[in-house]
């Protein structure tokens, strides 16, 4: 791995749930966290990985010569900023003023050089840039150039955070303070995981921590969804399943996520 390349799990065009407008989302591989509920488990490890979907196997016995059934696929390939940018440009006609690119993952900040290069190229083409980050890492030069940051605040209590994500959130909390000083609009998001952080107390604590920030533009609660389960299985990882929060639960919690409450 060199600094001028990043391992990309996938590039999704026409993404409409990863920021404003129509966007291209680049899923970088590698993450310092290890969230139990991760819906992109293939993006945890930095190196390319094989994913195996046995139900697609046709039993030809020629795995070594290459699999074409979709049963064995390699997730992740090294790409330069130039190669990624080529794909970002594909949808330029659809971005208009608010759409653009979202760097996601995994944790995009583990590839600061590639992303800085991409931001430079995007700015030259007037393409809006955003990142989805855990804020476990911080790069003020990178984050300061973005048009939007979407940062996760998963659990308020540091030890509990460590239990479910593998690291404490002490640095993350500090990074929120640093982020607010960059004059970049940011959105805070909490994935709601039943049995982990789906309590009024949890949401209230997070809200109270973030509501005074001057550059915050919103606080969103995202319901857990089990889309990562099949991928966990395909990666040979332990299947960790949570309940999907009810609509009523989400509505109740959203009342407490109101920054003006």
């Amino acid at each position, binding site marked *: 791995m060199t600094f001028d390349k990043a391992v990309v799990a996938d590039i999704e065009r026409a993404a409409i749930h990863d920021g404003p407008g129509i966007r291209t989302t680049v899923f970088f591989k590698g993450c310092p966290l290890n969230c139990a509920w991760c819906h992109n488990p293939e993006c945890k490890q930095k190196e390319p990985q094989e994913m195996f979907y046995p139900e697609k196997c046709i039993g030809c016995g020629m795995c070594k010569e290459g699999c074409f059934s979709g049963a064995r696929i390699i997730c992740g390939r090294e790409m330069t900023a130039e190669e990624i940018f080529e794909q970002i440009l594909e949808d330029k006609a659809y*971005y208009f003023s608010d759409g653009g690119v979202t760097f996601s993952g995994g944790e995009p900040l583990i590839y600061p050089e590639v992303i800085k290069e991409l931001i430079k190229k995007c700015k030259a083409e007037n393409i809006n840039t955003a990142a989805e980050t855990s804020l476990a890492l911080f790069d003020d030069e990178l984050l300061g150039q973005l048009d939007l940051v979407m940062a996760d605040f998963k659990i308020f209590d540091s030890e509990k955070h460590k239990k479910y994500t593998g690291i404490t959130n002490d640095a993350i909390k500090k990074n929120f303070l640093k982020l607010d000083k960059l004059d970049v609009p940011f959105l805070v998001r909490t994935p709601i995981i039943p049995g982990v952080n789906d309590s009024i107390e949890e949401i209230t604590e997070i809200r109270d921590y973030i509501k005074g920030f001057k550059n915050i533009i919103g606080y969103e609660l995202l319901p857990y969804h089990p889309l990562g389960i099949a991928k966990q299985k395909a990666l040979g990882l332990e299947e960790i399943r949570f309940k999907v929060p009810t609509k009523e639960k989400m509505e109740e919690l959203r009342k407490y996520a109101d920054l003006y409450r």
Partner: protein
Amino acid sequence: MLTYIDRIKILREKKIKDTLLKREQNGYTDLDDFGTVPLPKNYKVEPWFNSENGSFYGYDGMSENFCRVMDAHPPYVDPLEMLCGRWRDMLVNYRGDLHYMPDWRKAQLSDEDLAGVTNQWSKRWDEIRFPYDELKPLQKKYNIQTGIDGDAHLACDYSIGLSLGFGGFLEKINKYRAVNPDKKGFYDAEEKCVNAIIRFIDRHIEEIKRQLEIEEREEIRQNLEEMLETNLAIRLDKPKTFRQACQWVAYFNCASRVYTRDGAGFQLDTLLLPYYENDIKNGVLDDETAKFLIANLLLIDPHYYQVSGVDENDKDLTNHLSYLVLEAADMINISANLTVRVHENCDKEFLKKSAYYLLKNKNAWPRFCCDKTLTEGYMKNGISKEIARKRIAVGCNWMCVPGKEFPMNDTVKINIAKVLEQALIEMKSEDEKSTEKLFEIFTKHLTVAIEVTAKGINLHLDHQWEVTPELIMNLMMEDTLEKGLDISQCAKLYTIGVDGAGLAVVADSFGALETRVEQEKRLSWDEVYENLQNNFEGVKGERVRLMLNSSPKYCGGNTVSDKWAKRLTEVWVRKIKAQPMPDDRQLIPGWFSWSRTIEYGSVVGATPNGRKDGEPISHGANPNPHFRVDGSVTAQSSGIASVQCGYGNTAPLQLEFDPQLALDEKGVEIITKLILGHFKEGGTLININILDSDKLMAANKNPDLYPDLVVRVTGFTAYFASLSPEFRQLVVNRFLTNM
């Protein structure tokens, strides 16, 4: 007191019941809803055959049978509506065409009679007088939809009819009969048809009077009295008010549908604007009533109407009535074929409102066409900007200049997957095998296919007037009544559309061969041929199929198959435009398969993109399923924008997806940007289905539970519950492609 909303609710419920009853009478119909209502009991027409092959042709045959079918139509007066009249049956049901024949008609025929009907057009065309046996082998070889007796694919200039009225038609017929005494047969037939329409109106007048005698509810009585007044006013005279204009259009549309299923409408928001403005000025109309009238017109028939757009001086045509049309369509929210014409200076609020209704109702309306690409493209045929701007969206994939043009659009198609099959067969015996060689042979076969297609078109144009003269549409075309000629003989513009079908199958086939055989050398040509021959049988065959099918596809985004799709488009356009045509006729290329993907696929063997023998071909200019892992609608949009043929005909972007967007500012913005983005990239037309995934899947299991679900099958919309299981599955499969 019943409000307009109450009345619409009842009419909508009645429409849903009618849809299910029509399915009982007709069987599954993989067609437009057409706005028909169920047939009454004991409905019967005795057709008059003037040909020994058991069909009818020409001025006599068409006018006589039009009268018989029209006269058999009972009046349709619903006191909750403001307009009256519905059609239920059409002439083609008596011309031996199994493709369109409803179950109730089949039940009237004996086994012996049915044995004589066909699944194609043979009895609609008078082969005894105008045979084309010499063309048939090549037409079959390349699976050409010939256009021979493809009727009604043109557009009337409704301003002619609205300025004359039915009485005015009769006066005009009489005037020019005296000028052209040698055309007596033509004028007699036209007169006979107009009189049948007037009789149809008269029966409605009698029915309204009958209902008035028994109706006691004051508000309903008032409506019936106004209905009577409207009908009496337009029986012969030209319409003067907005209500009269809508009623006049409704009657003309019923008649034109009965005759040849003509579904071409007009620029709804500008043509009716003077009536609207005049009535508003005179205080006899308000917006709520205007909306109810438009909703009523849309309920009567889902004709193709265009709204918004731009005039020849680049002035935006959007007006208050344009908004009312959308609001009316929303009010009734049934199968509708409204097209919004989008241009650079368009009213952005109007565009947003259009997108809003698409997202809100998820009933596949409106759709969108691009003024810039269509106008500039059509001008490349040597047409002025003024005329090109008047070429409006009036069909599934097609545009037409009302009153002037005879385009035969959407009736002529070449299945290029079949052309590829022929090229593969020929290359098999060649020493040299390569994609370049295959493309060379493909081009040679394509040239032959286009030549034979042109011969069929010319045969049709030379004789349509003797087979299926457009007696109803002639009333509102230029120079027809004046010269005593059918529009097929005297159109000012003969820009004939020829569509290619199967683009993605062919592009992906070339792409897969280049990737797997030439670049990676994973397969030999012999292995490819062997597997095509045995339809990828066995596990090894399946591996080969998957290898080919997993090659980068068309619409993948700068893939090898995208490159081939562009190259195929270039040769398609070049060959179509190079085809010599007599007189002032010229061919215009497009990509479109209509809803014939199953039928076209059934005659094509296995193809090198991993498609098995007999499977459907790709839909229009759309990519094959699984063209990208993310099913990106923007990738599809850009891919299709890159294969536009550029002469004013379309290669529609046909989208089926559930964007899971909320009905809010962001949702509407996303849809709007997708539309504008496609047109910025060079697209021409967007036929779009925004669907609720769960509802679609549940409706596919039990369609009767969702009788109000409307989908855009291809260019037209239809009730999902009326489609055959095969077509429902086709829509579902296309939907899954974008998931």
